[in-house]
């Protein structure tokens, strides 16, 4: 797989290092301090899931997990354990590049230079002032709706698991009550989207969570 993509990535100006095993991957992360990590969940020696928290302990670089389609629960666990986003095999080069771009952008967000305003379409979310405006009109949101939207905005264009959303909006005690999130996302869609059945911004990732799409990537 790497062979196929290395060429494209290098064309885009990235430098690519690869490791065949989880153990080697950890070493590479420690020594090279990469800007972004692509992790295949089907590693030969270690359970891919186990590697995620270990990498996360060593770096704040974004981790994008790659897995086959039928490993939905693995993806959720990986995301909850610290991964930022995912790709499903087989994926295309544009998909890969888009994810990488998003990941690198979000990396730039971490720290003091975090963005306080996120825009999508003609919406503008002021994270500090806690307001959502469309054009010049304000869109009224309940506190919970706002918390959810803010969480998604802080990870703009990255997938946020339902568990994370629950934790942010209600606290850890409400883990696994996915129904709540859905109800509120339903309401948010009604307020933000032109066609709730064809969302442009509040994208639902089946079995995983949601993603706020700010760019047309």
């Amino acid at each position, binding site marked *: 797989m790497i062979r196929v993509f290395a060429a494209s990535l290098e064309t885009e100006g990235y430098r690519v290092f690869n490791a065949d095993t989880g153990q080697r991957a950890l070493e590479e992360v420690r020594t090279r301090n990469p800007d972004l990590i692509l992790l295949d969940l089907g590693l030969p020696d270690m359970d891919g899931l186990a590697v995620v928290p270990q990498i996360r302990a060593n770096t704040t670089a974004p981790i994008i997990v790659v897995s086959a389609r039928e490993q*939905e629960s693995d993806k959720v666990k990986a995301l909850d354990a610290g991964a930022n986003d995912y790709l499903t095999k087989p994926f*295309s080069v544009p998909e890969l590049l888009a994810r990488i771009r998003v990941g690198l952008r979000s990396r730039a967000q971490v720290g003091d230079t975090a963005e306080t305003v996120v825009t999508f379409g003609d919406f503008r979310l002021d994270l500090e002032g806690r307001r959502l405006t469309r054009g010049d009109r304000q869109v009224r*949101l309940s506190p919970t709706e706002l918390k959810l939207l803010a969480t998604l905005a802080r990870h703009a264009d990255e997938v946020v698991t339902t568990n994370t959303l629950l934790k942010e909006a209600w606290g850890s005690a409400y883990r696994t009550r996915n*129904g709540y999130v*859905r109800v509120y996302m339903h309401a948010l869609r009604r307020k933000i989207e032109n066609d709730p*059945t064809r969302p442009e911004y509040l994208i*639902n990732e089946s079995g995983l969570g949601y993603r706020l799409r700010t760019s047309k990537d």
Partner: protein
Amino acid sequence: MNVASSIEKDRPVGTEGGPADMIIKTAKEPWTSRLSAPIAALLGVVMAVTVTVPAVVMLGREDVANVAILYLFTIAVVSIRLGYRPSILAAVTSAICFDYFFLVPYHSLVINHVRQLVTFGGMLGTAIFISTLNEKLRKQARAARHSERRIEHQYTLVKALSDAQSIEALCTSAARQLELASGARADILLRGDGDKFDHAFRAGGTSALAVEDLAAAEWASTRLEVAGLGTRNFPGAAATYLPLGAARGCVGVVALRPRAGTSTRPSSLTVSMARQIAMAIERTLLSDETRTAQLDAETERIRSAVLSSVSHDLRAPLAVIASASSTLVEHGDRLPGSGRDEMARIIHDEARRLNELLKSLLDVTRLQSGSLHVNRDWESLEEVIGSVLGRIENRAGRHLLTSVPSDLPLLRIDAILIEQVLLNLVDNAIKHSASDYPIEIEIAARGVESVVVSVIDHGAGIHPTEMTRIFDKFYRGGPPTGGGLGLGLTIARGIVSAHGGRIWASSTAGGGLTIQFTLPLDVAAPGPVVGTEPIEGLAS
């Protein structure tokens, strides 16, 4: 003469002994036939003597002719009632009495005249003739009764054999018939899978086989000879073993445990019944074998047809990928940029198609083996539709009309699986309708129990007789457009069933196909949020 026509029970056949052994249940049972031989003989004599008295008193010594008739009558009665020997004795006694009391000189046994000899001889001769005739008739009646009984047993057996639906039923009723016919306890033993005699069918009760019995059974079966109790081979066994020999060999053995005091030799009736049972068993086994063989052949045929069709469908995209990539390898540098792009695009598309096909196969395999894991959670159908729309409208460039009520409650479903169902249904609709007709997805609540999702196309539709067949595995209606193994609807049905719903097809009004499925609603669904709470710290 009494010719019995009722079936006799408790009758030990195989003992062609004297009257004492035969308990003949007839309509009128003569008590006289149960008498022992000496008593009967004595009675015969007594009767002959007794009748002399009224003869003398009523008829007088001169009425010789009538006296003779009286004696003959008595002899006839004795021969019918008491049997052959008593009647012969009675005849002799009567002749003596006749001579003594009615022939001159009286009170002496002397015969003076030839005429007297004629009378005497005639009476004796007639008496003996009557007795003999009666005896013959009695023997014939007995034989006829015996025959009739045999035929009854055979008939009942044949009926029982033909009524039986399975080997087990067949053997059990056959054993019962054998018991009724022979009076002995009968069991039928068949060989089990281990080639041992472990399948026993008894008319009642069970018991394990002792070593001696097993040996006897084996002997009977392999040598086609009677073995066990009462024979030269393994006489220590608890039962007599008759082989059940049919055309192809021995199918089993009959174990007979005769009642105490009765003969251990199986009667000819038992032997002939055993033969019939053997044939019936063989027939049933053969028909079972034929049926299994037919089924196996059919399964094999379907399997190889499916295998060849599936491998063809999977090979097709691979072939395209192989040739496109080989073109790139061989002529890549000589192709214009657009040509290279074309090859690459082809490879990409075919790889995607292959991936879809393999996924369908995997899904259907998982469905079949029951290992499909349904991960239920509170999900919004609106979101599921959203995902489906995203995928379809990107890929196929077809527009879909949707009608989703805004107050639809959440459902406990596996979102990914239901998404698959909708994708399969919409894919199906796309394949079978032209692009100028829209495809519609409608969701409606059906009372408080379930939700109905409908995927409606306005294509050519299908014949009413195919409405249920389209859900069959590998069913492809008409020319296979756009590839696909014909598994989409099968998988959809499997997933819907796993959720406790129903799926069915119907014709769209105005032409086309509509496929609908239900999903159960749960009363405890978290409800939709109504209204909004004011935002804290609101400035404007």
